[in-house]
């Protein structure tokens, strides 16, 4: 029982990270109908930028953890969103109107570029950061050393994700940018005819997606303390799975899917086998796409004949 509850908390924390990455997939898919294969690597770039920013801040004497973390968050969001923008500008925008698989192939190319660029720039070995946010709270004590604990970092992850999700939902629902985004999602051509600057809207979508992914990258760095150039690939596929599971194109769906994938992965590791936890996530992707291609919260698509 206490083991089950403990895994629930662990799963929610992990799922929050996936959810933040999944939003990037789902937004881009919603607007231009492509799988931004490089998004997982943007997440990885975000983690690296955060790591470097933190190291530099410490080196110049900013040692108060809360302040440093806040600054890291800002720097990473800005610089990573620049990557999101650049990827769209270089690899996707020239392909608008090309055949449908072209952006996907281009995205695979971009993913290879980002991975190897980071490996070139920062080396292939893992980077280990000692835990910065420490401390745990016992929320349930059954005696006999059976306890359910939540750590400060888990609280931080879940709270930040929740705050970002709220802010982001507000942005989509109530700002003019959000309205443009929703218009582009419905019909890109029509939105352009009605005076929406579609290029700008799409760029901003990539920017926001990358910023959220960078937050996920920071969380990942703080939670696990270990990153390398390769973390983007698997995390990316899992986040994409989350987006599909929740219903691609749907923002609450992405978050829900992220949490579910996090939970499934955690419980799978806890009760079955750690080695095959990725197999579990990948299998879910296959099963969901086959039996429930519209996901939990997605809209059904009617085939046009």
């Amino acid at each position: 029982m206490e083991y089950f509850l403990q895994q629930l908390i662990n799963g929610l924390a992990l799922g929050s990270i996936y959810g933040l990455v999944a939003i990037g997939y789902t937004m881009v898919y919603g607007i231009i109908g492509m799988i931004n294969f490089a998004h997982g690597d943007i997440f990885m770039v975000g983690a690296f930028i955060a790591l470097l920013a933190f190291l530099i801040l410490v080196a110049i004497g900013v040692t108060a953890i809360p302040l440093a973390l806040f600054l890291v968050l800002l720097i990473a969001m800005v610089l990573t969103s620049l990557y999101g923008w650049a990827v769209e500008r270089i690899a996707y925008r020239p392909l608008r109107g090309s055949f449908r698989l072209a952006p996907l192939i281009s995205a695979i190319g971009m993913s290879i570029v980002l991975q190897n660029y980071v490996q070139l720039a920062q080396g292939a070995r893992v980077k280990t950061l000692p835990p910065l946010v420490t401390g745990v709270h016992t929320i349930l004590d059954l005696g006999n050393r059976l306890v359910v604990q939540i750590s400060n970092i888990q609280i931080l992850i879940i709270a930040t994700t929740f705050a970002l999700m709220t802010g982001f939902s507000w942005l989509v629902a109530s700002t003019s940018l959000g309205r443009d985004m929703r218009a582009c999602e419905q019909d890109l051509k029509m939105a352009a005819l009605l005076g929406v600057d579609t290029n700008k809207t799409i760029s901003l979508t990539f920017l926001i997606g990358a910023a959220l992914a960078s937050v996920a990258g920071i969380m990942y760095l703080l939670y696990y303390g270990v990153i390398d150039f390769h973390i983007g690939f698997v995390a990316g596929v899992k986040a994409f799975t989350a987006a599909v599971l929740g219903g691609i194109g749907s923002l609450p769906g992405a978050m829900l899917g992220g949490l579910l994938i996090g939970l499934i992965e955690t419980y799978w590791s806890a009760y079955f086998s750690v080695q095959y936890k990725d197999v579990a996530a990948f299998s879910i992707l296959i099963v969901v796409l086959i039996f429930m291609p519209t996901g939990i919260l997605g809209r059904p698509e009617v085939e046009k004949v």
Partner: protein
Amino acid sequence: MSASSAGKSSVVMHALKDALIAGIVAFGLFVLLLGFLADDTLGKLRPLPRPVLLAAAVGIVFVGRFLISLIYYNAAALRVLLGELFVAAFALAKRFRFVLLALMIVLAFVWIYRVPDDWPLVATIIITILFAVWLGLTPALLALAVLFPVAFYSNPYYLGIAIIILTYVMLGWGLNIVVGLAGLLDLGYVAFYAVGAYSYAIIAQAYGWSFWVCLPLAGLFAAFFGVLLGFPVLRLRGDYLAIVTLAFGEIVRIVLLNWISLTNGPNGIGSIPRASFFGIPFTADDDGFAARFGFEFDPTHRTVFLFYLILALALITNWVTIRLRKLPVGRAWEALREDEIAVRSLGINPTNTKLTAFAIGAMFGGFAGAFFATRQGFISPDSFTFPESALILAIVVLGGMGSQIGVAIAAIVMTASFELFREFEQFRLVIFGFAMVGIMIWRPRGLISSREPSVYLKERKTISAEHVAEGHG
């Protein structure tokens, strides 16, 4: 006069402005990742500033963007000039193509004779091959392939590269059935390569059967996996299918890593039986190949044999694909790529049709895997990662989806340049990634984008790329 100089200066100003923006963006992109190294040589991470590297990277972007902008704003004039030069050169080359080709081949062989260890040689050979194909002389390419081991007998390194290239040619042709003809984007092709390699290794070790028995079995196993995967997922639309095949490829790799009792996990399988000359091993013993045929023993015999083996396998793949294209199943594949709904309205079972493409593509992947296993003598899951799938896909895409000769050229160019720039490990992969993006932008239909009809009434006309679709979904 003044107007044109004013125009010129405004062009320069424009280009400068573009370059400045690009430089600022580049600074933002590179300031942390290139500007600092998270160095852990002292046991604890610390930032190591690299200002020179940062400045160089930003400078390259700035200058590059400046030049590109300059060219871009003067594009019209430049293009006309280049275009006329190109057309004239092409016409000349075409008129004297046989002379040129003969010259190139003679040159190549002279070079081989004079400086056998010089890598520009390889470049020359590649250019010769390109010429041959460019001028429509496929047979020349084949002749070159057959003569290759004769020319390079004394240089096993080049033979080794040629074998790798041919393996990729075969993989490209195999995947071409799935991606190029049937229009199904398969990102997990390497899984079938892996299944072929592992089933060959395991069967050959466990039962000691010869290569010629295990090879078809490996192909069958891979085809079986193709059907197993294909059956549930082939109803999916284009990009979903791509992601699912990617997931499948990863699942296969993870299983290979963790099913220790069967695959020996990350340590891989070693001492896989080597290919024999139809039962006669390539050893120095009395019943070895050399002794039996009265040669002096030379390990290169095996390499030459492997070369002809993979050449034969690749040619079989090519022959089967060319035949299949002219059969109803091949036409159904291409029709499926063009319009799946129309295909269904004509009474063709789309799932079965896709499944055959998947299974046949997988089978050739399996054959290539078996060859890989017997050539290496050792396999591990590290050889079957996603970038491998991406490379094979890039070969098909660059070559021109559906074009056999295009795929062959792309495989030669890509694999050879990969081998030549081996010292620049990651750097070549960055270039490779950008190349994939570039192909999609400038030549989304690949090098050879036209299509030969499979049947004709009066005359065979090549179909230009503009009409050909590249996959539904």
